[in-house]
């Protein structure tokens, strides 16, 4: 059934009422995209993660909350943030499809060594690859 929807440049990812058209256009026009182009942990954090986890990585509370990544002991096991970013977790979207292995490794390494976190062991793109479903 989907295959006849050739007008929908994106196919299934966009069976979401709204994003269809502007998304399809953006993609089609070449400037728009599915994935993130930022390179390096800091740029990725500032352009993506801080939308929810906030610029100081302290999270925020409203009717629900975004957890702090600052001084977060759960970041000690590097595999945990990798898995959360790649596969998502509850309200946190899965970003696996929007980042390369390198990008995920970079942002994890950045987060684990900033905002009061000081975990020295590095995540590699190979670790990220292994975490993908």
């Amino acid at each position, binding site marked *: *059934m989907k*295959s*006849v*929807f*050739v*007008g*929908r*440049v994106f196919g*299934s*990812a966009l*069976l*979401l*009422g*709204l*994003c*269809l*058209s*502007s*998304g*399809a*256009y*953006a*993609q*089609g*026009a*070449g*400037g*728009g*995209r*599915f*994935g*993130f*182009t930022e390179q390096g942990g800091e740029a990725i954090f*500032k*352009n*993506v*993660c*801080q*939308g*929810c986890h*906030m*610029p100081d990585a302290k999270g*925020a*509370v*409203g*009717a*629900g*909350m*975004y957890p702090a990544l600052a001084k977060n002991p759960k970041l000690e096991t590097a595999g945990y943030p990798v898995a959360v970013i790649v596969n*998502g977790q*509850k*309200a*946190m*979207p*899965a970003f696996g499809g*929007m980042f390369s292995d390198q990008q995920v490794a970079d942002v994890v390494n950045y987060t684990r060594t900033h905002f009061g976190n000081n975990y020295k062991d590095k995540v590699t793109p190979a670790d990220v690859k292994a975490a993908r479903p």
Partner: protein
Amino acid sequence: MTEQVLAPMNRRSLFRMIGMAAGSAAMYQAMTDLGYAGESGYSAPLKLEGDPKGASVLVLGAGLAGLTAALELRNAGYKVQVLEYQHKAGGRNISIRGGDTVNELGGFTQHCQFDPGFYVNPGPMRIPYHHIALLDYCKRLNVPLEPFSIINYNAMIHNSKAFGGKPKRYREVETDFRGYVSELLAKCTSQGKLDQAVTKEDAEVLLQALRAWGALNQNYEYKKSGQVSNHRGYDVDPGGGLSWQPTDSEPMAMAELLQSRLWTGLLTGHEYEYQMTMFQPVGGMDRISAGFVRALPPDMIKYNCKVTEIKQDANGVVVSYVDSQKGGAPQTATANWCVNTIPTTILSQVPMQIGAPLKNAINSLSYSAGFKAGVQMKRRWWEDDERIYGGITYTDQPVALISYPSTQFMQTQKGVVLGAYTFGPHAFELTSLSPEERMKVVVDCGAAIHPQYRTEFENGVSVGWHRMPFTLGCFAQWTEANREKNYNALCAIDGRMVLAGEHASHLGAWQEGAIVSALDAIKRLHQRAVAA
């Protein structure tokens, strides 16, 4: 699919051709005939038969789902109490006006500076004609509607990397695309390449159609002519007397048009969800929730209640909540039943006595990113300078589109345009910025299409939906696979509680979805209640 008419492959390629040529509208028609399209299932106002015998219901959340549930359950004789996190009702059904404060998570506060009478709809802005439950409520609740212009032939389609970054008019792209596709298809037809697909007689009709529809000349070519200008517009429009000589316009070259992908800007208005006539409430989208609130007793909604825990047993539910402004010790509210319309982003963090299927379903959803910005301009230059009256300009830039006001044409000096409406990566990125940084992007992108942005920009307000404290996102992001796995469990009654809302519908990201989901949920809950 059977093979009566065409082999499946041929039929598919026919769809493809129709789709390419007609935009999705004709293809949609063809598919409707094959039973592919559907409606929201609503036919008439809900009648809940049977006596609830004094049963009580707690409705959690006063968005459109919660308001619908409250209104109908009260009419059916239930004792209804609504708990709402915010100091006002409506949820995502909002408008921002001058004097309003927008509080985003992270302490980002904006004070909207619009002049009196202007507003932006940072959430829902348009209503399809087939969202009949919503339209019915607007009628019942005396919410006046007016047209929302979805297609404007004089608006722009823009790709910063095509045609030297210069925008084209919708009518130019549309006519040229239609013309070239017609020419190509006519060529195939007269060369006998469609003999397998159409009879000889039909091929003749097809040629006639293509000529008329594509504005082709007698040789079935799409070329500069008066006829073509009659569709795509002129370099100099026809006028009167001696000083105006109409001058035909030159179509774009086909290869350049195809590669520019400007044609992707033609698709929206043809899809079922965006076909004309679309509507908007006069004066702002939040007039709908205001209509619901008017129809409810004043004390039915308890504001500033942040639900923090939900317990239930065989007799009813106990909901804990704290004052969302002042905090303090949790209070509790009890009832026999519960309609829970809190977005799943938040519900996934609320301890609840529920079964594993519902819990898994809630936890399986994250919400899409969405970003919108309203921009007040010192004058209505899109009308005065560009002759754009309503409608939408599409662009490949981060703002994705510019939507011009559908009302007050030429009546006010100033005006507010929607300067950004974007999803996906760009929305995540724009959400991550401070309101000031965002507005700079909005103006830069706008100025690439309309230089007037530089001089006429006055002030603006933006919403990054992941920073909205009451939803943590735009709308539930269902994949087909996840829907297969978790949708039924999300909608099923769990003990004494049922979920409702945009997320519990097949019309995700639409207000209609919130409403029909609530109607369906309370219908099922009512059956249980009267049977109990």
